């Protein structure tokens, strides 16, 4: 009989071995940490979704800057 460790990494095997309710509670903890760290509730744009609208306005990050900036680059 194939066991989870034979197919997936240890972290996944451990996740599979939790009960459904344990997984739910673990995800709640992750949520709390994410929100404490200031994580946004805006979903990532999903370009493969049939609902994706390339022209829709996107929320701006709270600090008012783009979340990714080039700080240094070569001339090429």
């Amino acid at each position, binding site marked *: *009989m*194939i*066991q*989870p460790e*034979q*197919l*997936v990494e240890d972290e*996944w095997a451990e*996740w*599979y*071995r939790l009960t*459904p*309710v344990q*997984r*739910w*509670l673990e*995800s709640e903890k*992750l949520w709390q940490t*994410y929100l404490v760290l200031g994580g*946004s*509730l*805006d*979903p*990532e744009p*999903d370009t*493969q*979704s*049939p*609902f994706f*609208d390339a*022209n*829709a306005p996107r*929320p701006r990050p709270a600090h008012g800057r783009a979340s990714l900036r080039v700080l240094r680059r070569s001339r090429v």
Partner: protein
Amino acid sequence: MGGQACVFYGAAEFSRDTDLAILADAANLARLRKALAELRAESIAVPPFELKYLRKGHAIHFRCQHPEALRMRVDVMSKMRGVDSFAKLWRRRTTIQLPDGSAYELLSLPDLVQAKKTQRDKDWPMIRRLIEANYFENQKRPNKAQIQFWLLELRTPELLIELAKQNGAMCRRLSARRPLLASAASGKKVELERMLTAEESAERKRDQLYWLPLKKELEKLRHPK
């Protein structure tokens, strides 16, 4: 029906929206409007929140403005490609109760798997994880319905080969519905992997075709003449 259901059943998705499958009738919509009003949820995109759009298979998108759910997204759907009617989904639902007493109604695992068969890359590894988790949880004493579900839906070649060898008769019976089961039964892993990829591609193509008219309708709503 979305990310949290995936977490419950064994996949892992950090979904930042809440997806609800609902019964699309006037009375239920009135109740939903009231609940959304309590969350100060505003419709944020087309289509408008109307029965006819839900019944066609569109999703309605909201963003909450209540301080306790600030900016949380809620998406509501009633009809999904390849998924049974709401009445059947409701009969088969999973109800969970957490230690704090709160209860949630989730799509059953087979219905969630059907709902995840979309054109998006991210849904397919999710399906694989969902079924693997269910397999490992129940592999010691599975019932017939579970074995049939796994034979028809597993996306992990090693597990399909193992299962096909243990359940030859059922595998042969189901191979008309899922031809790759013949390769699983004969242990041909490379061929099985190729057929799983082809199966996924065909399903994604069907989803794209299904959405074509709906996407056209969304475009018209976004840019009325």
